[in-house]
């Protein structure tokens, strides 16, 4: 198990390096100019010096290695200093955004809480809806509940989140006026009133994402329960006189959760990507919105760093899913 984990971790390094190179070259090949918004009255030699100042003058491989150094060496040192009060990163250049001229990681750190509260909450809610639905529809296979559950989850992952979001806004934000349609990120939770306002503005984005996630996870849960329900150990458990409740909720559920948990782990990074759209619909200024504005502004360091962070999330969660599978199911051997 340990050797497997170590081997996978070692394999992840070239994968991530390659992905970063692909993203970098893609940005490099683009015809967009980060100085495109500079007025035409600025003389060309000044423009040239502005390019130099942005670090665009050098060859691409030098800039790529420089970015790697900043990402993997300077930034960890900076955060180490930040927490322990040392000064290792003194005088080192951090990754700087072209748009705001502030360190990319500071901007990301400002945006992460918004994304995490909305996306994280929706994933938790989605899982909590999906698992009971999966259990019931597998236990009562082909009942009206199962048929309805299948239909609703089919609709759930056929309706794109930008459509469900807009429909919810029209119904609950405009017609009924129950919830605000725009997410106010400046809101600070201080007392019950502001807490209530925060809950109200989170209801719609969380519902949209939770429905989408629940639709997929409940299908997996159902399939996994079904394949376990007619196993021999279930018959044994019933034969020795355990109550139906114990059989289903202790024996079957625990075994069925093994593949579902890995699916949940695998889906987590995809949720960050999918949240880009939901954030756009509800005007949440989280990571997705940051990425879109950065793409429009040709802010190369920001786009590169953000996309790379998404890639790291995917690689890490795939690894976690594989390891979890081995830990939870002792029958699986990796060597």
């Amino acid at each position, binding site marked *: 198990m340990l050797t497997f984990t170590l081997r996978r971790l070692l394999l992840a390094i070239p994968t991530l390096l390659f992905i970063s190179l692909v993203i970098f070259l893609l940005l490099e090949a683009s*015809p967009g100019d980060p100085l495109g918004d500079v007025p035409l009255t600025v003389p060309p030699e000044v423009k040239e010096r502005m390019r130099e100042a942005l670090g665009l003058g050098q060859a691409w491989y030098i800039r790529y290695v420089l970015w790697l150094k900043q990402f993997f060496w300077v930034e960890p040192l900076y955060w180490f200093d930040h927490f322990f009060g040392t000064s290792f990163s003194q005088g080192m250049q951090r990754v700087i955004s072209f748009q705001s001229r502030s360190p990319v990681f500071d901007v990301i750190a400002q945006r992460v809480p918004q994304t995490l509260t909305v996306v994280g909450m929706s994933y938790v809610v989605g899982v909590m809806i999906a698992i009971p639905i999966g259990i019931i529809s597998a236990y009562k296979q082909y009942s009206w509940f199962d048929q309805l559950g299948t239909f609703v989850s089919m609709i759930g992952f056929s309706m794109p989140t930008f459509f469900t979001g807009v429909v919810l806004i029209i119904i609950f934000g405009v017609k009924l006026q129950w919830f605000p349609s725009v997410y106010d990120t400046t809101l600070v939770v201080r007392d019950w009133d502001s807490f209530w306002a925060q809950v109200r503005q989170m209801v719609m984005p969380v519902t949209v994402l939770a429905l989408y996630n629940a639709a997929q996870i409940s299908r997996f849960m159902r399939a996994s329960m079904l394949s376990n329900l007619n196993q021999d150990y279930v018959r044994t458990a019933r034969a020795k006189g355990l109550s139906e409740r114990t059989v289903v909720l202790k024996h079957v559920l625990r075994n069925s959760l093994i593949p579902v948990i890995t699916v949940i782990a695998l889906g987590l990074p995809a949720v960050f990507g999918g949240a880009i759209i939901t954030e756009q619909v509800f005007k949440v200024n989280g990571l997705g919105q940051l990425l879109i504005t950065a793409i429009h502004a040709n802010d190369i360091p920001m786009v590169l760093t953000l996309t790379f962070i998404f890639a790291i999330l995917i690689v890490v969660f795939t690894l976690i899913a594989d390891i979890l599978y081995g830990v939870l199911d002792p029958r699986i051997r990796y060597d």
Partner: protein
Amino acid sequence: MTESDRQHSLNTNELIDETAAAAGAVAALPPDNPQIAGGETRSQWRDIWRQFRSHRGAMVALFLFAATILFVLIGPYLWTIDPTYVDIRARNSGFSAAHPLGTDQLGRDMLARLMAGGRVSIAVGLTAMIIAITIGSLIGVLSGYFRRLDAPLMRMTELFLALPLLPLLLLMVTLFREPLSKNFGPALGIFILIVTAIGATSWMQAARIVRGDVLGLKEREFILAATSIGTPPRRMITRHILPNVLSPIMVAATLGIATAIITESALSFLGLGFPPDFPTWGRLLYDAVDQMVMYPSRVILPGLFISLTVLCVNYIGDGLRDAMDPRIRGR
């Protein structure tokens, strides 16, 4: 070993068990000349169709999907208003005889725009699916059949699976839209760009499924028999391997259409899809969002079309999977 591979090896074992059990019961084999035995000839595809018809949801979905395709293909010949014709005096009109689904903020007919938009959306879905399936089956068959290619090709597939797809798609579309529009004209250029971008980033699942199936097939006797009479690899793949992995490919293809349509409309919704005067369902939705308080129907109609089409395609894929799974067939 990943989950799908594991599931697959289980399936293969079951298949082998079934085959072995059937081989044991020689007495139950059909007579040498089956033409005499049965009245109606039975082919694999007829069986699949019979099984498919018993899936009620899939049949309804097939009917609705066919209706949608007819609507966008034949519709413009019956409803001859130009979708880009601006009638500023009739702008923002509601449902009426002249404009059954109303008009938009420039007075363009919504019914005509929905038809035109559907054409593009479905065309994008189909083309992107064909690209993804071609790449996917090619890589799947190559890495399943040739042991030497397996490791590098699968590493590459894993690499692609680790890419953050939506951010990359956004990036590709934003960065390359201008050069391509210049070379191929705005509409065709964006079409090529979107279709290749979606196709190039969604072949991985198909490749893994096909590879798993090919690996299972290679252990079967008929492949051994074909090898023993000296069939060259090229003929082996086209004659013996491909026809036998056609059913998972078809299921993956159906589901691929759904993802491609959703991805295209998501790109359009983020304002990075087709140009404004070139309607697609996603673009229509995006354009209407600004005025959704006043004219909610303009948002809901294209959204309904997207959802309905994707729902139908998903149901058809579900029905196909059930119909093609020999373990469920004939239940």
